């Protein structure tokens, strides 16, 4: 049990269109759990591995040759900032996974630098997620996850893995980097699923 700090409100007071407990920012805060990987697009590769071990690969030229979409979405970080109407360009996971043979229910996103995060496969489909390589009309900066990051804006932003390098699909749900350290396995900001058990 603690006390209330007289006159302390925190950096909040976001408004009614924000998920509970979030505050609005116009900045784009950079969170980092480690050194920023600097991956040249020449060396970049994205691999989908299915539950049977089959691999599907795209290099940078193959990714950027696919039909891209302009995406405008609100994003919500579990550290409580939300940013509205962010604009991205990227390839829908529906496009990337269209020819992938799988019956898996779960996906683990893997990043350059070793980060992982888990998601139900269905949350990556039906226009809900992208491999994004432009932000605000510019190539995505390394500090924000460039050259390409996963974008899954309907979940807390830790699910939108920076520096994404692949997805591993499986029948059972494993937990990723933050999910094994007390964060929620799913992370719906509107249900305020911050921590395991929320």
């Amino acid at each position, binding site marked *: 049990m*603690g*006390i*209330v*700090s*007289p*006159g*302390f*409100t*925190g*950096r*909040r007071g976001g408004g009614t269109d924000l998920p509970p*407990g979030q505050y609005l920012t116009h*900045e784009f805060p950079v969170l980092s759990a480690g050194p920023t990987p600097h991956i040249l697009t020449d060396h970049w590769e994205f691999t989908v591995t299915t539950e049977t071990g089959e691999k599907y690969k795209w290099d940078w030229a193959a990714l950027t040759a696919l039909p891209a979409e302009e995406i405008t979405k609100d994003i919500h970080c579990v*550290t409580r900032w939300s940013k509205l109407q962010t604009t991205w360009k990227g390839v829908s996971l529906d496009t990337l996974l269209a020819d992938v043979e799988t019956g898996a229910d779960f996906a683990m996103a893997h990043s350059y630098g070793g980060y992982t995060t888990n998601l139900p496969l269905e949350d990556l489909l039906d226009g809900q997620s992208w491999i994004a390589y432009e932000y605000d009309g510019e190539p995505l900066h390394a500090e924000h996850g460039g050259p390409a990051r996963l974008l899954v804006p309907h979940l807390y932003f830790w699910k939108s893995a920076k520096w994404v390098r692949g997805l591993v699909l499986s029948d059972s749900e494993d937990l990723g980097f933050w999910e094994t350290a007390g964060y929620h396995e799913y992370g719906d900001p509107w249900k305020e699923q911050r921590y395991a058990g929320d």
Partner: protein
Amino acid sequence: MSWQVATVADVRRETETARTIVLDVPDWPGHLAGQHLDVRLTADDGYRASRSYSIASAWDGSDGSTIELTVEQVPDGEVSPYLVDVLKVGDPLEIRGPVGGWFVWKPEQEGPVQLIGGGSGVVPLRAMLRAHAVAGTTPVRLLYSVRRPESVIYVSDLKELASSDDVDVRLVYTREAPAGEPRVGRIDAELIEQYAFKPEDGATTYVCGPTPFVETVADLLVAAGHDPARVRTERFGPTGGPR
């Protein structure tokens, strides 16, 4: 160690953006110069934010339960603006500490002491100088990098400490120097060569400041031949900690 409630006994403006907060902490166990503590703020709906701050005062047993923190306001910060502008005498403040056993100076430690601070990185170094004034017998040098004369924290204190034969204080101005001080610029290899102890003096060096400052100074020291094992660092970031 868990959280406990301290009471603000006094506040003192140090510069336009920094304030010293004197806390009365029941049953304070004492601390080593250089240790820090965590401060936790709680809003009325339960929202919390916590940060680490170095302890600015030394503890010699006679001060009883009083300690001092000096907080520099971070632009767009969440905790520091509250501590610098809102918190007032008589208010409660939750703290956890003292903690940290590495970036500390103990009077029984052998060899000279080199202190190098950038901005509010001088705070734990001031605690070391204070502790040294009471119990130290070895020479101490402080290199203190500030933007301009008005940014100096503990002005009168430093003047008093610098008048001791054991203590040498050198201020470095990075943006604007007072009249009579020709040098404006960051700490560089030449300055380290001129004002710091030599590698063969066997000094323990304490470097505290923003991450890029500490990085630069630690690299300069190692390049000048100082043993990395005798260089202790304490970096602080713009936010200073999660939640």
